[in-house]
């Protein structure tokens, strides 16, 4: 564990990232945007209703909106942060030297990935004080926030691993970036379309939902849908009825994205020293 934390690549990357003002201004603007959104929402809600107070269900709506904004942030920023980690080293001709050091392929990949997602994690954690404003007005279970953050973490890890994997196996950063964004769009948008399609097919003829593993699969790998089931347990019930599968969607999500993370990291580690493969 100590070797993982004292990873030279991780330390160097973190040092480089926070050496420039870019990272700090990025966080500053993110927090400013979040604050404007939250206080604007509260202001508009209280002034439009004319009640002068903020109801718990409105607080929950605010919480849900913020949750989706952060999910969008993870889905759109993580590929940009991770899809160039290895290919940039290759393009800058620093990778060969790194590969001749005593570091293992896993240490290099781990250091690269953690340093990339650490920035986004910091961004999300720095938004917690704004996030916890909702507790002032009630309507949100603290446990729900914990669950949401664990969900964020898993999603971040999975997309980060995919980005690092593409960055390792694709030589050009720009191509790696496009492929990672493509994969992310597939997981978050195309799967929703497939879900609608498979539900239509499963209800075809009978008019009532039948056992549909495909519908379950598409629903369980779509971050937005799984997020909705975590926010609205009623929607989870709805999905169970439509797919006729009792297993909660988050279980499918956890299994799928854990396997995806492990698989992507394994492939990245295997392909990092691709020229050392026997039959290359």
């Amino acid at each position, binding site marked *: 564990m100590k070797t993982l934390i*004292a990873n030279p690549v991780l330390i160097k990357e973190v*040092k480089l990232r926070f050496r420039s003002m870019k990272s700090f201004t990025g966080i500053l603007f993110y927090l400013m945007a979040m604050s404007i959104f939250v206080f604007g929402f509260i202001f508009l809600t209280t002034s439009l209703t004319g009640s002068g107070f903020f109801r718990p269900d409105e607080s929950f709506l605010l919480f849900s909106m913020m949750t989706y904004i952060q999910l969008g942030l993870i889905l759109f920023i993580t590929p940009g942060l991770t899809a160039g980690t290895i290919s940039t080293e290759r393009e800058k*001709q620093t990778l*060969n*030297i790194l590969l001749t*050091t*005593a570091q293992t392929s896993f240490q290099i990949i781990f250091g690269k990935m953690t340093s990339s997602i650490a920035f986004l994690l910091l961004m999300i954690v720095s938004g917690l004080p704004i996030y916890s404003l909702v507790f002032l007005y009630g309507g949100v279970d603290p446990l729900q926030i914990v669950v949401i953050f664990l969900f964020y973490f898993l999603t971040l890890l999975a997309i980060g691993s995919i980005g690092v994997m593409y960055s390792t196996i694709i030589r050009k950063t720009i191509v790696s970036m496009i492929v990672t964004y493509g994969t992310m769009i597939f997981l978050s948008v195309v799967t929703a379309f497939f879900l609608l399609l498979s539900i239509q097919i499963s209800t075809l003829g009978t008019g009532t939902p039948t056992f549909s593993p495909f519908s379950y699969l598409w629903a369980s790998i779509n971050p937005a849908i799984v997020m909705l089931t975590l926010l609205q347990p009623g929607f989870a019930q709805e999905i169970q009825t439509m797919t006729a599968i009792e297993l909660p969607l988050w279980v499918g999500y956890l299994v799928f994205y854990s396997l995806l993370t492990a698989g992507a990291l394994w492939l990245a580690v295997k392909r990092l020293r691709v020229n*050392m*493969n026997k039959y290359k």
Partner: protein
Amino acid sequence: MIEIVGLTKKYGSFYGLQDLNLTIEEGTVFGFVGANGAGKSTTFSILATLLQPTAGDAFIDGMSVTKNAHEVRKQIGYMPDFFGVYDQLKANEYLDFYGASYGLTPKEREALIPKLLELVNLEHKRYDYVDLLSRGMKQRLCLARSLIHDPKILILDEPASGLDPRARVEMRDILKELKSMGKTILISSHILPELAEMCDSIGVIDAGKLIAQGSVHEIQAHLQSEKVLKVKLAGPAKEAMAFFENDPLVSKLVEKPEKQSIEFLYRGTEEDQIRLLRQAMERSLPILSFAEEETDLEDVFMAIMKGVEVK
């Protein structure tokens, strides 16, 4: 010690290396000479554990570069021909990062970095960003990096390429110092006279094959099939021209009236050369001097690359 046994690397149907066999003794400086694409960088990449050979193997201190790559990496310091640096790091941080990558403790790194910077004459640039260093300084910093874990063997691929003459001299001096420290150095370069000055032995590689190996003197003798002989005359050249033209070992005879001399290529041995001179003296040719033109390694190399027949 480095031992290369039957090393072969194929890129599709093209042979980057073909059955390369080579032994480099501990503490020696071995120069690798060859044209672009001859197989120097491929050999170095395999030794640096960056490339898997198609056949054969190489051993560093008895450890296979293919089977014990991780252990081999701790024994070698590698400097590629083209490399990048982390621009936003300072020179000391750059070395610190690589020191940590080799598992050195912060205390060890702290003690080692000033010494290494001093060795490569960059102690005054310790807190400067790598980005701001000149090309020559970056090359020296990269050399310092390759020494951070005190490797027994240094693999330096064209360490002086792209440097101005002054930077080349500085680099050569550092390498001489490393040689005096007892490091085994495998170096490739196009600046052949410098290699000749520094190296204990040299290998000439062409089209993936080692065509000669030995000391600089041996290589010259081995590779030169024809030597250039210069004969300076005190009188008219006509008779001398006719005499030398008749010798079967002489070719490409040229008269140089402005120097009052004639030059020709001679294929014979030293004994043949003595016989030729004796015969010329017996005919009372007006010979002032009879000498072999000095050729350096570069001339030999150029001759090989032009396809001159090799013995």
